[in-house]
């Protein structure tokens, strides 16, 4: 238990900050630093990334010393399906149109829940798709094809 860092709240937070700060600093090396009087585009990012790494190191060390665990469980499944539903929506929207994109999005995102009830998801998808077509296409006048290849597109 003592050396289990995988669920150590502050250790992971610190690690994440160090990683983001590190990548940020590394990438900013490509941007001219300039001088304090004439700050280049790399000045502010490098200062910030450095600061983030410093905070990250502090939090990481504190995590190792305090050993506090992450509360609750990780909702990896929900996170995966919710993110996937957004990606699926974006991908389908460009290729097949708004209605297929919304249908795909609802079915994928519904898998993120605790239970998947076919009938409910079908009804919900139908109702919300109608609502969203009403609001976005007719209400706000956004120029998206409902289904690519149907109705003049």
């Amino acid at each position, binding site marked *: 238990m003592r050396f289990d860092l995988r669920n150590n*709240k502050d250790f992971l*937070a610190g690690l*994440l*900050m160090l990683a*983001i700060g590190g990548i*940020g600093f590394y*990438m*900013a090396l490509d*941007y*001219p630093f300039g*001088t*304090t*009087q*004439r*700050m280049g*585009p790399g*000045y*502010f*990012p490098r200062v*910030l990334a450095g*600061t*983030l790494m410093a*905070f990250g190191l502090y*939090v990481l060390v*504190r995590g190792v010393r305090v050993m506090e665990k*992450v*509360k*609750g*469980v*990780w*909702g990896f499944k*929900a*996170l995966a399906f*919710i*993110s*996937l*539903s*957004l990606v699926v*929506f*974006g*991908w389908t*929207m*460009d290729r097949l149109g708004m209605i297929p994109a*919304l249908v795909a*999005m*609802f079915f994928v*995102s*519904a898998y*993120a*829940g*605790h*239970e998947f*009830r076919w009938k*409910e998801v079908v009804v*919900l998808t139908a109702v*919300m798709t109608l609502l*969203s077509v009403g609001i*976005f296409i007719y209400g*706000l*006048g956004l120029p998206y094809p409902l289904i690519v290849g149907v109705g003049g597109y």
Partner: protein
Amino acid sequence: MEMFNNLIYGFTVALTFQNLVYCFVGVFVGTLIGVLPGIGPLVTIAMLLPITFNLPPVAALIMLAGIYYGAQYGGSTTAILVNLPGETAAVVTCLDGYQMARQGRAGPALAIAAIGSFFAGCVGTLLIALFGPPLAEWALKFGAPEYFSLMLMGLVSAAVLAHGDMVKSLAMVVLGLLIGIVGTDVNSGMARYSFGIPELTDGIGFTVVAVGLFAVAEIVTNLESKERKEVFTSKIKNLMPTVADLKASFWPIVRGTGIGAFFGALPGTGPSISSFSTYMVEKKIAKDPSRFGKGAIEGVAGPEASNNAAAQTAFIPTLTLGIPGSATMALMLGALTIQGIAPGPQVMTSKPDLFWGLIASMWIGNALLVVMNLPLVGLWVQLLKIPYRWLFPSIIMFCAVGNYSLNNSPMDVYMCAILGVLGYTLAKLECEPAPLILGYVLGPLMEENLRRALLISRGDPTVFFTRPISLSFMLLTAFIAFIMIAPAIRKKKEEAYTSG
């Protein structure tokens, strides 16, 4: 007298048919969505932001402000009826509001929350009209060093006073500033952190960050656990509070308004700290403190007035200085920027219709809340029964279509997914997203002012300490950071957030 002329001018703007409709729609939709369990005001605003972008600036801001307090009030309704706080400020309302509901007094609790909020809202509106103009006039004298120091103060105090760990919150501010850098540097024209993706040279869209960090992260957090809450729906018969209730609530409402107005106006502090403090004060001065937590009406009236007062006065630094006090205000500021209005003291003089129209509409919005909510309580209660498995895909739908519509590009939707993963991870590791979004909004401005300040001073960093206004901001920043490091006070803050 000028104040009244200005307010009257504001009412002429806000009372046009079109703006009145937007105000009403905003308050109604805000309450409607805010009431839904598991959807806080931040998520409500984040998901509805893209819809307002197609409106003219004044109408968009009026509608957003309506959504804001509609959502806040809706959140109180959920807190009282389901014991489910949508945001930290509503945690306090849960304590006694839910107990009142269990005793069959949900009606009076909801009514007193509405009345307290309305009173606080009126006072808040007057305070903005009173203090806004002189503050903006003063701020017009600010140069780059003053602005930089002021932003630093806002960000540090936001991180330090916010809920949660101080060091992590400061780190989140820095992370937010870094995310704000993504895009093309205005001075050199160089694309920074764009990873070779052309869409990213315009920066990461503001609603993308808001939706990813707040909506996606919150939905996933809600889906982690299977908790079911009992809803007290059948018992709402008597809506009107008794005379004794009103008497008991009067001073808590007044005190709450005062405390809330004070905290709301400070950059970096928002409704949550003010409602927590109000609750503590009421508990301290009550004759019988043991009633608190068991359905004391003062415990609903005070904090509700307080968070609404804070919600109003938070507009003071946002509109006059361009420094948002809370994550919600950061969203408002972002909306302003997207409408092509550079936030800052010049807004009041260059866009008087926007400033005064918005203020007048706040009052109208508050009045609408009272008029609308008491009769509609039955409808809100019905909404509470909607199962979450229907809600969350629908929220995702609004977020997805809304973000797609910004640039008609799927890239924004993909970025939402990526920031959602980041947002959820941060939430799990107890890194607060609110300081992050403040940093993100202020990032580009802060870099620009730092650059200008150092250019004027020929690279001499003491410029921040030799100019009196800038020096006072720096000293205040140091003071705020110092007192929070002091163990005794830090303990008090934790008490305020936990004991409640």
